[in-house]
């Protein structure tokens, strides 16, 4: 098993008076795709936002690539090598596709070779290069959000429910894209509710409930253990497909 790239230890997060994360322990291993599963309101999005520093952990610790990021600011966390694709995609609607990617490339103009590599996944972005991102379809916006996260090499991608509201054909496209990224040893922490999407992609899985991790293990094991599925998710995984 590969070494840990990101470790959360006993992380608590409060939003106003609400105690959302109640001691999250999670490890994301280098080069793996880790899936965070759980019902609505379990704390998955809060976990990603806490990692990004958008909401601060009130207790516990976060270590990324050997560096304590518990109190780090969001820009510092991004600069350390974490890219974030939020649930709402966070696309800048008034900016063109090109401008969205230009902003994500902190080192300057995006590398031409890397852009071509991205266009290989998402040709629509090339086609609509100079078009306002707000005019793209939902699937194309999701592609742009992912492209923005990988326009420069990052150590870790945090992706929040990329299939939400998308048509099955586009979900299939995203599966192909994530498979390509996995093949390039990219480390990904993927939050999903659509088990059909992640079962073939995930290396590790963690299941959240009520702000805690209630199960950690290998995805293959969970996919094969129907009793465990029943107890963790309330439904067999087949029902999620």
């Amino acid at each position: 098993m590969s070494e840990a790239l990101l470790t959360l230890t006993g992380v608590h997060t409060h939003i106003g008076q609400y105690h959302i994360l109640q001691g999250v322990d999670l490890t994301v291993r280098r080069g793996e795709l880790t899936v965070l599963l759980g019902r609505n309101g379990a704390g998955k999005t809060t976990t990603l936002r806490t990692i990004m520093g958008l909401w601060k952990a009130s207790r516990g610790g976060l270590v990324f690539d050997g560096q304590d990021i518990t109190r780090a600011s969001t820009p510092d966390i991004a600069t350390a090598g974490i890219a974030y694709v939020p649930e709402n995609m966070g696309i800048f609607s008034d900016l063109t596709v090109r401008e969205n990617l230009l902003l994500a490339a902190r080192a300057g103009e995006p590398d031409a070779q890397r852009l071509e590599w991205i266009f290989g996944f998402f040709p629509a972005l090339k086609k609509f290069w100079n078009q306002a991102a707000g005019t793209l379809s939902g699937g194309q916006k999701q592609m742009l959000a992912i492209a923005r996260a990988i326009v420069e090499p990052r150590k870790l991608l945090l992706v929040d429910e990329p299939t939400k509201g998308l048509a099955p054909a586009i979900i299939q496209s995203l599966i192909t894209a994530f498979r390509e990224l996995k093949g390039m040893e990219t480390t990904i922490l993927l939050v999903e509710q659509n088990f059909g999407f992640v079962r073939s992609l995930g290396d590790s899985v963690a299941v959240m409930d009520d702000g805690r991790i209630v199960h950690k293990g290998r995805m293959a094991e969970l996919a094969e253990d129907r009793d465990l599925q029943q107890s963790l998710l309330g439904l067999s995984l087949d029902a999620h497909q």
Partner: protein
Amino acid sequence: MTPIATPTDAELPKLKLDWAPLLVLPALALAALPLIGSAPTWVTLTIAGLAMGMMIFIMASGLTLVFGLMDVLNFGHGAFVTVGAFTATLVLLPMQGWMQADSVLMNLTALSLAVALAMGVTGLLGWAFERVIIMPVYGQHLKQILITMGGMIVAEQMIHVVWGPDQIPLPLPASFRGAIIFGDAAIEKYRLIAVAVGLIVFVAMFLVLNRTKVGLLIRAGVENGEMVEALGYRIRRLFVGVFIAGSALAGLGGVLWGLYKEMLTAAMGSEIMVLVFIVIIIGGLGSVGGCFIGALLVALVANYAGFLVPKIALASNILLMVAILLWRPQGLYPVAKR
């Protein structure tokens, strides 16, 4: 590598420029022509309206960006207008000889020094205002309103302390006085200069916002500041920069406005703030283009109404705002928000 095609790859409609708000300006001007009756009077009023609109735009543009970028309601913005105008007197009054000399070069030199000092001081004041007054109340609108209004009152009183309670006359430079005659229409030179300065500021802002990475960051930050931070940029620093630039522009607007009125009072900034807020609401909070169109609309309506129906001149801008908001509740060019 498998190319990915989506069912929605079909050609999308090109982003269309929303022409409707732009057409309101000529429509308003043309509608006023038969009501005014005299073409020379109409030309004079229209140029006066455009000049006034440009000055209001210069004062309002920084405020709309500050609101859009950091959701800050700065009711103290008028203080920068007043301080800018009064600071200019530190150069213009001692250099009265240069201002009244019959030499464009001497007039411009004195004015440029005054504008540079006014923008420098208001920029610096803006930085201090953000650090001391705004920073503790981020995200708290009610407190922002109260403390920034308080800041403006303090600034006005400080102006009384430094410059005394009397109005200060600020005559135009000799070469900016008088009018140019086009046919039967007399157009004041200073109004044309104000239009030119306003256009230069608008074009400069347009180029910065659309052709530079800083401009991209500002536009992105207005739409979704959190995502800009998640991409690794420090939006607070950007905000401080925009706040300083906005304050300096308000200072420039103050100098122009003071010369336009040829008289400075400590309350000039707070008085103009009513128009400034109407402009940024009409334009769409956070939109520089909307602010530009809104400023011209407000000023044209004020000038036409002042001539045609003086009794409703004071209420004309409120009526304009109501009409625009009934048509477009988010303003002429609403900024997409997360």
